[in-house]
């Protein structure tokens, strides 16, 4: 063997050993705990991906500035390794694999959207790496028997079913039978919206309501006028629409244009689509579900109460006039990790998994307690109604403006 070959062989041997050793140390480097996340910074979810990332970063900064995380008597600082998943599930799964196998990350934060979470969960599950996610609400994530997946947010079937409850109590109040309520629905043909639909169908069935329109909108929907024409003819008492922000924007625009007069219209993603600003006339009285609002009466010792979070986040990121709930729940997910590290007092994946599973706490975002399946069962969905350019909380049907006041 000549000298050059020997050098080459030893170099490759050393790098090989480094690659073997390196990942084992990467999850905790010195006094740093490395969390990993593939998040959508470009592509169709870029806006919400960024909201989530800022929520993560804000929480990391806050926890670090308040003394970090104490494990085994030593203080650690949190930091997050991000990759851009380009809003595509395949890329997300690939990057999760890379975070875990190459970068040695053993503590994961979720991506944005149910679709991406669905792509990544099998990977984290395969390696037994716990993932606390904040942006995947699809019910179907929690029926797969995943052991390492935990979500701080309410699941999707709860998004619009409160609207049905409100419509039922409104009917009772007006001396009618809830079963006389006619329901019209238009849902995008994607996992999230179809889950929302499931919840609505179940609730409507409970009251014996009649579903008069049940349309599924294509993913690239830019026109729902045929559905709305049908709405005009059928005169339902409540119209439900779900299709992320694009569905909300399309619906608001065409509801205004076609002068739809339904006593109650309930739509998901109102805030994200900014329908109250872009279509102030048509959006009057829209009933919108939200995971969190600055008015919820919860608090914790890191962020204070929800109002304080709202104030301080705006101070840190002055470009926000209203904090999207996607941001708040991302911060809550980081907080869950911190509490789990301290409860487990270890960096062992399985002990951490059990610690997360046993979490029972109140945060500014709401109460957190995970079910066996990993979803948060302690936090209800909130409903808010657009009134003027503001959102008014709707706790019971008494808070509801019915029929919605609108002047086209």
């Amino acid at each position, binding site marked *: 063997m000549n000298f050059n070959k020997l050098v080459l062989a030893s170099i490759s041997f050393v790098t090989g050993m480094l690659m073997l050793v390196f990942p084992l140390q990467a999850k905790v480097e010195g006094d740093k705990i490395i969390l990993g996340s593939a998040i959508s910074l470009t592509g169709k979810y870029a*806006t919400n991906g960024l909201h989530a990332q800022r929520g993560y970063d804000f929480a990391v900064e806050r926890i670090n500035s308040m003394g970090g995380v104490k494990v085994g008597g030593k203080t650690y600082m949190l930091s997050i390794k991000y990759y851009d998943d380009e809003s595509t599930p395949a890329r997300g799964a690939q990057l999760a694999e890379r975070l875990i196998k190459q970068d040695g990350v053993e503590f994961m934060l979720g991506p944005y959207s149910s679709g991406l979470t669905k792509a990544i969960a099998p990977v984290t599950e395969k390696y037994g790496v716990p993932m606390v996610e904040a942006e995947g609400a699809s019910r179907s994530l929690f029926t797969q028997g995943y052991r390492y997946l935990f979500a701080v947010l309410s699941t999707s079937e709860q998004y619009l079913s409160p609207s049905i409850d409100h419509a039922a109590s409104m009917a009772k109040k007006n001396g009618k039978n809830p079963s006389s309520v006619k329901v019209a629905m238009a849902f995008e043909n994607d996992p999230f919206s179809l889950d929302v639909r499931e919840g609505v169908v179940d609730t409507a069935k409970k009251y014996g309501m009649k579903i008069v329109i049940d349309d599924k909108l294509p993913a690239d929907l830019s026109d729902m006028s045929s559905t709305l024409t049908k709405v005009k003819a059928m005169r339902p008492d409540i119209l439900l629409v779900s299709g992320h922000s694009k569905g909300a924007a399309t619906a608001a625009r065409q509801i205004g*244009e076609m002068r739809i007069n339904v006593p109650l219209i309930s739509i998901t993603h109102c805030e994200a689509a900014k329908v109250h600003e872009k279509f102030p006339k048509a959006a009057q009285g829209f009933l919108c579900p939200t995971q969190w609002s600055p008015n919820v009466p919860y608090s914790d010792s890191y962020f204070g109460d929800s109002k304080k979070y709202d104030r301080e986040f705006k101070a840190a990121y002055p470009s926000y006039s209203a904090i999207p709930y996607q941001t708040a729940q991302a911060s809550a997910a980081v907080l869950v990790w911190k509490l789990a590290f301290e409860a487990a007092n270890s960096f062992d994946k399985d002990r951490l998994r059990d610690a997360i599973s046993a979490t029972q706490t109140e945060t500014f975002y709401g109460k957190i307690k995970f079910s066996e399946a990993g979803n948060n069962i302690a936090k209800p969905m909130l409903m808010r109604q657009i009134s003027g350019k503001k959102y008014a909380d709707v706790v019971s049907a008494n808070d509801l403006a019915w029929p919605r006041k609108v002047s086209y």
Partner: protein
Amino acid sequence: MLDNLKLLFIWAPVMNVQLILDGIFIGAVFALTAYGLALVWGVMNIKNLAQGDFVIMGGYISFALFNAGFHPLLTLPLAMILMFGFGWLVYVIIIRRVIDKDMFTSLLATFGLSLLMQQVINLIFGPEVQTVDPDFKIYSAFDDFVTIPSIKILSLVLAALLALGVVLFMKKSRLGQSIRATAQDPRAARVMGINTDRVYAITFALNAAICGAAGVLVAMIWVIQPFYGIVYSIRSFAIVTASGLGNLPAVIGAGFGLGLAEQYTGIVFGAEYQVASAVVLLLLVLMWRQIKLRQKREVVR
């Protein structure tokens, strides 16, 4: 489905008025993009997969100008001019290099262009759904049952004027004649002293401008999003394939037909089949043609 038919023809026949009107308004926009596609296809034999993205880009130009304080109608000519320039640029950078290559090269090139445009628009404007809300008057009839936003009427008129302008340009102007000559036989045109490279550039740029105009109308009557281009590409391919190249009346007819078909499919079968109806119609037309051809086919000895 039966319920929907009953609704349409027995309980609320007035719905038909709305559907037919909407179908016509929308069909006009479809016809515009399809005509642009037919032009490029016929003259240059380029099947432009980025057609829909040109439409969306036109919409975003209108959106940006509208936000900068321009009157929505003024954004139409501006978007056309900008898109003309953009089309020319695309021709010089990409299309010129693939025009003599086989079909797959040009398909791949325009597909790549389509992806690039989507992502760049997404980077600049973000993935949110946008719309240009000109806040024009909305006419209504039958006790608000039928509503017609004046912007839709206007878009129909504008589309008609544009189509007329393009036809006159192709028939009467020297340039239009050289475009048609090049379409018929590029080699002969070159022998006759026509600068075919220039003709190709103008044709492609003209198509981009037409798409830009359609995009402005789309932004004003519907909504735009960086990734919505594909449905417009599919629709224009369906229309052009069904009506043939260089047959403007057929393109317009097919455009209106598709607009109506989409509206009715949306009502009768549900919104999820609305866009699918374009493809189904295309399939039916192609099958019908095959049957017709079979009947005529003879063995020539």
